[in-house]
């Protein structure tokens, strides 16, 4: 399935590997921080409502 990359297989595959890894890491970190902040804000707002 993988095309014949000849003598340049290493740089081509490494480029795709590094790039996809960096993009996946960025997406994962963004989603994780989004969920964490959302949860923390809900908690603070919930506490505020209870106090009122």
């Amino acid at each position: 399935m993988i095309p014949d990359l000849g003598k340049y297989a290493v740089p081509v595959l490494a480029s795709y590997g590094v790039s996809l890894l960096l993009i996946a890491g960025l997406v994962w970190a963004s989603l994780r921080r989004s969920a964490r902040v959302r949860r923390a804000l809900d908690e603070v707002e919930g506490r505020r409502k209870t106090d009122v």
Partner: protein
Amino acid sequence: MNLNTLWAYANPKKFIETTDRVLPAVAWLAALLLVAGLVWGFFFTPDDFRQGSTVKIIYLHVPSALMAINAWLMMLVTSLVWIVRRHHVSALAARAAAPVGMVMTLIALATGALWGQPMWGTWWAWDPRLTSFLILFLFYLGYIALWEAIENDDTAADLTSILCLVGSVFALLSRYAVNFWNQGLHQGASLSLDKKENVADVFWHPLLVSIAGFVLLFVALVLMRTRTEIRARRMRALLARERMQA
């Protein structure tokens, strides 16, 4: 859309409401175009007669380099809006875009080195474009560090906006360095409005799809991260109020 309609999105609540509707569509379209462009480019394009299979790196290198520069230019615009209009969402959008731009710059530098080694015989050269790109990467790091280092959000937004203005020189230099200084290893732009200067159609079409994927990925990530920054800012404000009341 007139300018007054645009300013409505400076309201954090309105921004979150609108992006609630828009973000899923943008994210799915980004994933679709990114996968389509990369699969097309990797599996279904021929080797170049000079560069062999290394030409497949173009589908990562060119879009990421393009976004590295344009992310900074987007940050410049939103920073200027903050300086002039003091809209918090604008400053937070610039903050949200910085890590995305930094990763794009890192991808461009890494794929450039991996492409350069077999083609130029070296991983790195102190060529005008490469050097200005490295400086742009350092500016991204400095910008992110400055936001983290300052506790007061408004002061951080002021100082990072100034840093963004200074860094814009390097964002523009990384785009035009090849034209300014006719030296170094890096060739001119692969993309042009002049069809004769573009790469051959067989590489050009998947490259366009890949670029569209990277642009939408950037938009989706910036929208999502801006929402996070808006919520984080609100949380800091509520916590500060709690501390004052205690």
